[in-house]
């Protein structure tokens, strides 16, 4: 399956990464090569094969809903690049 610069540009937008024109060109070329390699998977007969997203026969792990101490907000904010009072500060979202 072909991947071109427009697709990479769109996917980079979905992934919230700015790419310089040079990066875009280089990455498009590299991803094309990697996907050509990955395309060998189209040769495999996967009819009636179930997908494995998790390797162990474990699902719906439940526990009692017991309240426990949570991280104090000051500690959670310690690593914030920018904070305002007890909030993470970000650029204005709504005009």
């Amino acid at each position: 399956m072909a991947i071109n610069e427009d697709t990479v540009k769109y996917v980079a937008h979905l992934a919230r990464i700015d790419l310089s024109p040079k990066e875009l060109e280089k990455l498009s070329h590299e991803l094309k090569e990697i996907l050509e390699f990955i395309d060998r998977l189209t040769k495999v007969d996967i009819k009636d094969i179930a997908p494995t997203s998790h390797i162990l026969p474990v699902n719906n792990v439940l526990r009692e809903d017991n309240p426990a101490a949570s991280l104090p907000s000051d500690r959670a904010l310690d690593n914030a690049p920018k904070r305002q009072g007890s909030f993470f500060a970000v650029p204005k979202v709504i005009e």
Partner: protein
Amino acid sequence: MDLSKLTAHELTVKIDKGEITPADIVQSLKERIKGADAKNKAYVRIPDALEAQVETGKADSALRGVPVSIKDNICTKGYNTECCSKILCGFKPPYDATVIRKLKEAGATIFPAKTNMDEFAFGSSTENSCYGPTRNPWDPDTVPGGSSGGSASAVASDEAIMALGSDTGGSIRQPASFCGVVGLKPTYGRVSRYGLIAFASSLDQIGPLTKDVRDSAILMNAISGHDPLDSTSVDIAVPDYTRALEGGAKGVKIGIPGEYFAQGLDKEVKAIVEEAINKLRQLGAEDAQVSLPNSQYAIPVYYIVATAEASSNLARFDGVQYGFRKADPKAALIDMYKGTRREGFGDEAKRRIILGTFALSHGYYDAYYLRALKVRTLIKNDFDRVFSEFDCVVTPTSPTVAFKIGEKAADPLAMYLSDICTISANLAGIPAISIPCGFTRKGLPVGLQILAKPFNEELLFRLAYAYEQGTDWHKMKPKL
């Protein structure tokens, strides 16, 4: 006496006799690091770490205060944890990973310097670190492997007694092989991932890098077990792994998969691994040829599954809660995200995030992601079939010895192919160990990989220890 050269089990004997204290070991390591790390670069942020007040474990505990060095993607309360990425620079976790808590409870000393790694564990050479590459102590022009290259190099050069790494596609075993040390990837679910900064959640496991097999068992005793904070960890009793060591190789049924000895395998590596299999035979193991036909698809499956999961896991790095933010007072929120991620992530991280986002995006999901998950089932079925007749599978850990720094840096696909022998174990969720099994004429170490059924680490220890006792490879030290 230079304590840095000893193993944990040798140090605990000295502590029990009252000859040394945990603080003496830390002091020895610091001196060793001052002498060797300027060249080796196994650790990051060294100056801060060497000045840190180290809280040592107690001498009357299971681990007797022996220091353990920690990869930079495992959260250590109070010590920076940055995944060797600019986007996490300055991050001080407000909590300990479960493995760190367990190590402290077992009486280990958490060594304050963190080990170098490929950014977010994306790589096979430790060249993708924002702190620059680590060297292989056997030849400083070559890579130590990756992504746990700092941990492997530190253990090999006696800059660490023992270390933790993480393994998503071979990131413990391949560097262990390149540096001539013992590296174990546990069964998926054996060790809690709580506090391991996630790369690919269905593949990641934390595991030990050590100077010998006994230390590997000792470290596994300390870190294994169910954790309510990681719902993918499994509630199966943890045996005392050191009791499995003396079982011997007699009667162990070994499968040798032809696919791992085919094209691409270095001739010298092949001969050394075949000699190691011969040794196992002499020790009483019984071997036969087996086939894992879907192994040929392991790398393409991995680079879809792992990048898809990574693209989702790394969405949290957006300049809001921690780490680096691209500050531009005029930027709108979305531009702040995009600018932060452009400057904060290195090339390989961007490549993988974009590949993974592509594989999950509308119109490509069925063709790539879903197809890869189905082929993953076939790879797992291959192992199930072989393990119905055999106790374990033995292969080279890597098709080559350590390559030159820079040799594969410009060719992502060539770098991906260096994981060809290790990736299947992660996709199948099975445990695998790499042990030193010889040296090439140029003096570079070769690793032997043993893989077993899920939750059968004991068999790995049993066979690895039998081999180690019959050889001297683990006693070889690089000249630094």
